[in-house]
C-alpha cells in the first residue's frame, strides 16, 4: 500500500517511532537542537530532519532568539491524535465489553447446568 508522505498531516508525522521519541524528549519544555541531540543520542542531522517533518505539520513550533533556535511542542496540533487514539480505544473496548457480557452469560449458563 503506498503510504502518504510523512508531511501530509500530524498522523503520518508521528507514525515514525523516532519522531514520537522526539516529541517526548521535547516534552513541555523549549529546547535547542543540541539539547535534543544530547537527550536522544542521535546525530544532529537526524534530529534536524525529524524536526523538519514535525514543523511541516505544525506539531513543533520554533522561535529564533539570538543565535539559537528554540523548539517546543504545539499542544493543540496534538489534540486530534489524542482524540483519535481515544476513539480507537473505545472501539476495541466496545468489542471486548461485548465479549465480557457474553462470558457472563455463558458462565451463568454453565452454573445452571
Amino acid at each position: 500500500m503506498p503510504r502518504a508522505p510523512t508531511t501530509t498531516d500530524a498522523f503520518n508525522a508521528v507514525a515514525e517511532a523516532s519522531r514520537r521519541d522526539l516529541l517526548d524528549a521535547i516534552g513541555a519544555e523549549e529546547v535547542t537542537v543540541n539539547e535534543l541531540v544530547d537527550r536522544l543520542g542521535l546525530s544532529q542531522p537526524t534530529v534536524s530532519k525529524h524536526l523538519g517533518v514535525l514543523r511541516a505539520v505544525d506539531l513543533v513550533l520554533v522561535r529564533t532568539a539570538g543565535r539559537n533556535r528554540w523548539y517546543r511542542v504545539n499542544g493543540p496540533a496534538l489534540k486530534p491524535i489524542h482524540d483519535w487514539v481515544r476513539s480507537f480505544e473505545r472501539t476495541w473496548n466496545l468489542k471486548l465489553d461485548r465479549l465480557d457480557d457474553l462470558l457472563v452469560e455463558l458462565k451463568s449458563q454453565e452454573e445452571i447446568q
Partner: protein
Amino acid sequence: MSTTRNRHGSATVTLPSDREILITRQFDAPAALVFKAWTTPELVKRWWGFDSSQWLVCEIDLRVGGGWRYVTREEGGFEVGFHGEFRVIDAPHRIVSTEVYEGFPEPDAGALNTIVFDEQAGVTTMTVNVLHTKKEHRDAHIESGMEGGMQISMNRLEDIVVDLSDAA
C-alpha cells in the same frame, strides 16, 4: 446490561516492537469459556466487529491447517473481510493463526496472531499479539483504525496536551 458485575477494566494496547501490536484485557471467566467465545462461530458473531455489523460469513475450521473467515457488512454498506489459517491450537491456553485483511492490496501483508488465555484464580488475562512481517504493514494496520488505542508513549503526550489546554 447488568451493572452489578465485576468488569476487569479496559483493554490496553501497546507496541512492543516495530512489527507488533499487543492488546491485553482481563475477563472474570475461566480460560475455557474465553477460548470457546473465540472459536465458536455463533459466539464470535455476538462480540467481534461492531454492534451494527451485519454478518455475511463466519467460518471457523478449528484444527491446525484449518481456515477461518469473517466477513461483515458495516454501516454505509461496505464489506469488511478477514481470513487466516490456524498454526497452533492448544485449547484453552493458546491459539496461533495467520490473519489477512482482505481490503489490504498487498498479498504478503498478513499478520501472525498469538492469542493467549492465562487463567489465575478464575480470572483470565487475554493477550492478543499481532506480528506483522514489516513495520510498514504494522503502521498501516494502526493507521487503518484496527488498533484499539495506540499508547505509544502517548501518556506523556497526553500530559503535554492537558498542560497546554490548562494554560490556554
